[in-house]
């Protein structure tokens, strides 16, 4: 269980997250909301990208500020935009990230190969990343996040620019481990069309609405009057 308690962080008084409290259970939770509503900030806070914030983030009941690296060992974060070593191949890049997590070479290579196959990148595993398209890099980002089989997976618009078939494939891969807490910020509601998915609608850094998959349909119908932007 990943919890935030009275979590606040703003940018000079603007935007950000304000006194947000929530418990994220295993399974997929979607973060929805307008641009600037605080989705990315919340993900970055949960990913320990920021060190100054009010409130607390707890993993399994323990404040992550106590031992960030222990929390990072079970958490992966894929930002909206991320960099890669452009001259490494996908396989080499995944082995690098696996190495950062302390995985040994052979286990890492096996896991990387399986993930690349899973994301339909197996045929491109040894191509340099500078030759990858935007969609391929997005899928590689998910492979990178999954290399250490994390318990907490934070994804910021992971499927933007990816075709529909691969979008579904990515979400399925993310939720393969039933123990995993998957939190994804998205504008694409079909990303949440998975069993037991939940959603939060953020507005001005606070939770304005929440619910499960059934209630999501209602929210979509009311989307003209709710602070949710949808892309069908």
């Amino acid at each position, binding site marked *: 269980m990943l919890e935030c308690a009275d979590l606040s962080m703003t*940018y*000079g008084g603007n*935007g950000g997250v304000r006194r947000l409290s929530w418990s994220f259970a295993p399974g997929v939770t979607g973060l929805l909301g307008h641009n600037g509503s605080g989705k990315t*900030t919340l993900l970055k806070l949960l*990913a*320990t*990208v*920021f*060190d*100054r914030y009010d409130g607390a983030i707890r993993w399994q009941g323990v404040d992550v500020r106590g031992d960030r*690296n*222990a929390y*990072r*060992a079970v*958490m*992966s*974060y894929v*930002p909206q*935009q*991320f*960099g*890669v*070593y*452009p*001259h*490494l191949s996908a396989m*080499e*890049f995944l*082995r*690098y*990230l*696996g*190495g*950062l*997590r*302390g*995985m*040994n070479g052979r286990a890492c290579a096996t896991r990387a190969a399986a993930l690349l196959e899973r994301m339909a990148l197996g045929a491109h595993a040894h191509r*340099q*990343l*500078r*030759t*990858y*398209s*935007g969609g391929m*890099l997005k899928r590689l980002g998910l492979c*990178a996040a999954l290399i250490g089989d994390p318990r907490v997976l934070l994804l910021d618009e992971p499927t933007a620019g990816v075709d529909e078939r691969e979008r579904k494939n990515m979400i399925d891969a993310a939720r393969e481990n039933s123990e995993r807490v998957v939190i994804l910020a998205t504008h694409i509601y079909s990303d949440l069309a998975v069993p037991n998915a939940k959603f939060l609608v953020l507005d001005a850094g606070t939770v304005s609405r929440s619910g499960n998959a059934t209630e999501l349909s209602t929210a979509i119908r009311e989307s003209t009057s709710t602070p949710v932007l949808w892309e069908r």
Partner: protein
Amino acid sequence: MQPIVAMVAAELRNRSREASTYVMLLFVAVVSALVLPTPNAPYATLTAGGHRVLLASPTAGALAGVLTVVFLALVTLVLLAQSVYLDRLPFGVGTWLRTSPASNVQLLVARWISGTLYVESLVFVCGVVALVTSAFHGIGQNPAAFLRSYAVVSLALGPMAAGVGLLIDNVAGRHQWLRGTLVAVCWLGALALGAIPGGHLPDPLSLNELSDVAAVSLGHHGLTFGITPNPGGKALLWSTFPISYRAVANQVLLAASGIVALLSSLAIFSRFAPLDGEPQDSRRPRKTLFPTLELPGAMRPLWLSRVGAELRLMLVLDRGLLASAALAALGTGLVFSGMIRIGEALLLLLPLVFAGRITLCERAEGTGGIFAQFPAYVAQYTSWKSAAIISATLLFQLPLIVMWHDRAHLLGLAVGDIVLSVALVSAANWFSSSLIATILVGIWWYLFALNQSPDVMDPANLSTAMHPVLLAAYLAVAVSLSFVPIRAERTGDARA
């Protein structure tokens, strides 16, 4: 240990596949070949038993080592002083590192090790090329002695440059002006203190002293000796280079200073430093190192502003060059004519540097492609690119131009700049490959350089030899920086 190995391997693997690495290796190889004296160089030599003492393997090795250290010091500092910074840019791997379970110590130690190995690879190339060149000139009779003295002089550069570079990186943060200034200060400070080359040089002896020493040492072997005076009138000679405990101790000291710098940077390293592009950065307008990224729309005829943007980048480097010119002005007994002769050849590399930076960015940036689709804009495109290259080139050449009194040379240089710049841009357009353009310039420069005599490198007056090396160092820095945006824009392009 696993995270450190992974980071070092990835860093070096990526570097080994970057074009800039090979440009750098080629460059250090060329400079290494140029800086060694030829057997017929016009400096004083002591002929003893058919051997020139000056050109003995250990002395040549030590001399090459000193020049390597001086040449590479600034280059490596500039390269390594922005490695963490580059990670934190949007195209860098900073996000992965920041949220990884690797500790701060592991992050920095890995960076230090990879920096050290990278510098040592450059040192190795310099050494091998110098050895081959000296053998070609007939002065490297004993490769083992050559390499031993070379290694004793130059090996500590790696750990020191990597450590100091890391420290500067952490102190400067995102302030590129501070980074450039600190690098220049460190380098000039090291030179001024003689910390880098000092203590390793063979002791200069007067003509009479050397005669006495040689008479004693050679007399036992029944050898005779004679002295060929330097036509330039300099009366300094070098004895052979002894590898003393002092030299080894200095190397240990330099390496230790790199480790101290590493430890110091640990104290101020923050993995939470904002990544560029994060909202909190908007409190202060960011002056990007990569002006091409923030240029106005491609179709707007604002080529003057584009040239201005290019020049702003060059100012970072120009500050260093001005410092070099000041250093040169402070020197005494300089052989300006000789310096200019070799400087002229090196300065002709400048268009290559800037053309590489500007034209190689074009396709990734996208404006080149847009312009190519509309023939009416080709002239405009060519003109502002040429203007940018010429302006940047002249800016760099300014300090030497000020010192230059030969107007014929000045005119030739200016005309050469203009012709070369236009040719480069045109070549990049026609061939759709800036690589071809850079190769063309490389060949052109090489043919020109073949006609230059390297005999101006008079080791009897090392301060004279330093100046072309200073210039070479700045050029190499420019080469390195010229390729930085490519990494950015190509990655960005791939993401798009």
